[in-house]
């Protein structure tokens, strides 16, 4: 609240003269509003976005019927979910059954407390920030196991056990890789971690120690993806094997709580990844940090986190689901050795004064690499669009042939 107050006074100095109740209302209400946005409203956008992205990647249209281009589809779905009956099957442990989705949500939403949206726009700047995120998001695992156990359903229990095994396995490499930026900065606070990357895109941790940190980024992202139980690591809810995994027996409101938690977790993992590797709320160019009087930090964190969420969706519609043994193989035989190697290497490099915060060639790497990546994506995009136009011509020819009575479908 104090941080928000300072931020607001920086934005509009007159606020300092307001009555105390108004100051409390606005400086406590604004973070609450932001949190509410991510808790209740953002999943609507996520689900719509995900369905559209899935559709476009499969050359479909996606939801098109409810509202223009289907934008109201998720609202209709949410209303339907909320009004559906919450069914308690015979034999469920009612108390645990109701508590489980709430616990999952607690684990998914409490990390928002420490995510920094700007130099002073942060609900609470804990000195154990990253550790807090890792610790508190593990609560949702308890919720998942509780849901699986309370459902009195073997598929739900299988799903819960798988998710427990998966999250326990992937916590280890992810925590080890969190250590790498923490060792460079010497602080666990997300605010300190962000400030240490100031000075534009080439100072981000992603491009420090050039060949080393990109590996750390990829590994952390993969581990985070696995911790959110999303494809290709969605074996806890593998619909082809376990009806719907741990939420098989849930319906209506309680099911929608699991849904909310999944999307909130996606955002948390993306936001933490952006803070640790992509400079958090810092702009790629220092000049873009401030737009006139308006600090743009919130936009940059939002943009980076949503880009990573997009990558998650992109991966989901690219890769098939990993098998259980492949999952464990990735965690224990690939990510863990890499993470241990990274910790040892970066830990050694940090001790040597010349490479205390990066190799000498790091600042020549960031921009060329990112421009190369963006350029490659643009080239593929333009080629796809050109192919569209060519195919539109072919389709028009086929249509005229059919109209002339020669063509077939």
């Amino acid at each position, binding site marked *: 609240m104090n941080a928000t107050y300072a931020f607001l006074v920086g934005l509009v100095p007159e606020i300092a003269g307001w009555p105390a109740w108004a100051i409390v209302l606005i400086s406590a209400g604004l973070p609450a509003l932001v949190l509410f946005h991510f808790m209740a409203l953002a999943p609507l956008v996520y689900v719509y976005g995900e369905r559209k*992205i899935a*559709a*476009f*990647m*499969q*050359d*479909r*249209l996606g939801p*098109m019927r409810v509202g223009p281009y289907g934008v109201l589809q998720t609202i209709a779905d949410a209303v339907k979910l909320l009004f559906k009956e919450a069914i308690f099957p015979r034999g469920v442990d009612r108390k645990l059954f109701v508590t489980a989705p709430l616990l999952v949500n607690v684990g998914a939403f409490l990390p928002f407390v420490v995510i920094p949206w700007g130099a002073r726009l942060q609900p609470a700047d804990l000195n154990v920030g990253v550790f807090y995120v890792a610790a508190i998001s593990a609560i949702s695992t308890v919720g998942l196991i509780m849901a699986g156990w309370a459902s009195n359903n073997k598929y739900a229990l299988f799903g819960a056990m798988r998710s427990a095994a998966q999250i326990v396995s992937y916590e280890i490499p992810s925590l080890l890789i969190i250590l790498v930026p923490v060792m460079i900065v010497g602080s666990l606070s997300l605010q300190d971690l962000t400030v240490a990357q100031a000075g534009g895109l080439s100072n981000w941790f992603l491009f420090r120690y050039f060949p080393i940190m990109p590996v750390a980024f*990829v590994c952390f992202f993969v581990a985070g993806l696995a911790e959110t139980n999303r494809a290709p690591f969605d074996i806890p809810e593998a619909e082809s094997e376990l009806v719907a995994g741990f939420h098989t027996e849930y319906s209506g409101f309680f099911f929608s709580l699991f849904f909310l938690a999944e999307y909130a977790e996606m955002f948390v993992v993306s936001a933490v990844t952006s803070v640790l590797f992509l400079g958090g709320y810092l702009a790629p160019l220092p000049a873009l940090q401030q737009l006139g009087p308006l600090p743009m930090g919130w936009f940059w964190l939002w943009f980076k986190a949503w880009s990573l969420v997009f990558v998650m969706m*992109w*991966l989901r*519609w*690219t*890769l098939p689901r990993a098998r259980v043994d492949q999952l464990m193989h990735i965690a224990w*035989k*690939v990510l863990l050795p*890499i993470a241990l190697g990274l910790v040892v290497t970066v830990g050694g490099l940090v001790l040597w004064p010349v490479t205390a915060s990066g190799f000498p060639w790091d600042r020549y790497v960031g921009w060329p690499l990112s421009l190369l990546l963006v350029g490659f*994506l643009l080239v*593929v*995009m333009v*080629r*796809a*669009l050109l*192919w*569209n136009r060519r*195919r*539109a011509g072919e389709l028009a020819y086929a*249509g005229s042939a*059919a*109209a002339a*009575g020669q*063509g*077939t*479908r």
Partner: protein
Amino acid sequence: MIDWLKDVWFGFYTVLVGMRITWRHLFTKSVTLQYPSVKWPLPPKSRMRLFMNYEDCIGCGQCVRACPVACISMKTEKRPADAPPIWAATGQPIKLDVSVFDIDMSLCCYCNLCTYPCPTFCIYMTPDYEFATGNLTEHLYRFAKKDAKFLMEDPKQKAAPAGAAPATPQNPPASPAGASGP
């Protein structure tokens, strides 16, 4: 160690290849046709719902015999001698009153065999395919009507004096009045 590195790199690289493909498809135009509002143009000879033009039927029953699934049922009786003479549009005089002409589309196999033998081209397939119903008996189409407006004069007789009717396979040259059809 080398094998392990190769394996990891291969896994990572193939994921990137897949991501490139999905990224490309993100921008390719979708192939979806939003069916009820947009329809694929059908080829003109597509075989969908049968239609029968009752006014042109001479009651010869060739379509009934041609139908492999017996979905057409027809009842005719001889037209009384004192009834006014009527003709089909192709010029055949109609000698039989068709009292029943039912086509059960729920039985129809869309083979198109009934339309070939029809001497007056009065039964044909239309491109209309949206006739699904909740009740199967609604697929029984009754084409016989009480208030049919038959041609009361020979269309060939009418065309012949003008001398303008060209001789085409579908519209053969006029024969003397009262002559029976081919």
